[in-house]
């Protein structure tokens, strides 16, 4: 199968593989502990662990874009580190 038209690069492929692995991990987690662990956290509405993953990923995308807007000269790895902390916070408190 020729995938040249999709113009794959190693970083984007890595990105999608990581997302795919996250989804697989979430599925395994759900099979082990069914129900999605719903709770009402900091945002005052009920979230399951799937919601928390969604909020983490979407928030991380915004953190990266804001980083590019506010600190264009600094490395994006800082944004990545902040996103990781943000995701941990979301899974702990949201």
């Amino acid at each position: 199968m020729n995938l040249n038209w999709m113009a794959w690069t190693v970083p984007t492929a890595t990105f999608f593989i990581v997302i795919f692995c996250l989804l697989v991990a979430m599925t395994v987690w759900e099979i082990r502990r069914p129900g999605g662990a719903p709770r009402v956290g900091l945002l005052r509405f009920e979230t399951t662990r799937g919601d928390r993953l969604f909020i983490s990923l979407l928030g991380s995308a915004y953190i990266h874009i804001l980083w590019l807007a506010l600190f264009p000269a600094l490395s994006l790895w800082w944004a990545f580190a902040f996103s990781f902390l943000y995701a941990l916070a979301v899974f702990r408190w949201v």
Partner: protein
Amino acid sequence: MIAKQQNQKAWFMVLPVFLLVAFSAVIPLMTVVNYSVQDTFGNNQFFWAGVDWFRNLVHSERFHSAFLRQLLFSGIILAIEIPLGILIALSMPRRGWGVPVCLITMALPLLIPWNVVGTIWQIFGRVDIGLLGYSLTALGIDYNYTQDPLAAWFTVVIMDIWHWTSLVVLLCYAGLCSIPDAYYQAARIDGASRLAIFRYIQLPKMQRVLLIAFLLRFMDSFMIYTEPFVITGGGPGNSTTFLSIDLVKLAVGQFDLGPAAAMSLIYFLVILLLCYVFYTVMSNIGMESTNHGGS
């Protein structure tokens, strides 16, 4: 255990939809992500650009102004279409020969294709042969949507209201029709005013359909392309160049696929966030009122 087994088998039912969505949405989206970090001069040859397109975009004046225009447009049409739709739905008859007449009249604008709506309003607003443009000019009002940004905005907003308020009306009407008579009888016994009936019976019962109407209208207006393209082409100047028109100019007009892909992704993220926020807020309001009703 038995219930769990059934659940597992049911997942196979989702497989065709999953494949269809993968084919029509996920794979194209992946391609857009791949394009957004590269540059191309055609011939399927790509050069690594990293996050340059994103960096340029978030500092681009052109993108900022198109984004603000888009937000303003969606804000204006939602602020008009939702209250107007509720008002029209409330004044529509519930029984008798008026029902089909109103429903069909309301449904007519929804059946007209986007480019035809654009053409209708493009001609309707013309100063020389259009009824609206000619009448306004005859009344001494300075109206010319090809030269005046305010007139262009007025035309595009009125056109959208004409085209899409019906959708809000039909959804609200469906919500109103589903309210049992017992609620109105109880309100009559309590001597509730017209306003109280609206505030405490009709509005809460319409909440779900209003959520759908709000989301649909927001997403549609945020993606609007054809009608303003046909009426004004994004002009005069750039005054009605909304995000999608700007995106097409970038992707098809200038053939800058990398920057256009980066812009599509930011556009997509904005829509995703806004829809998630609206959906969460509105469904939580619904759940709270259900809980109050139950307690």
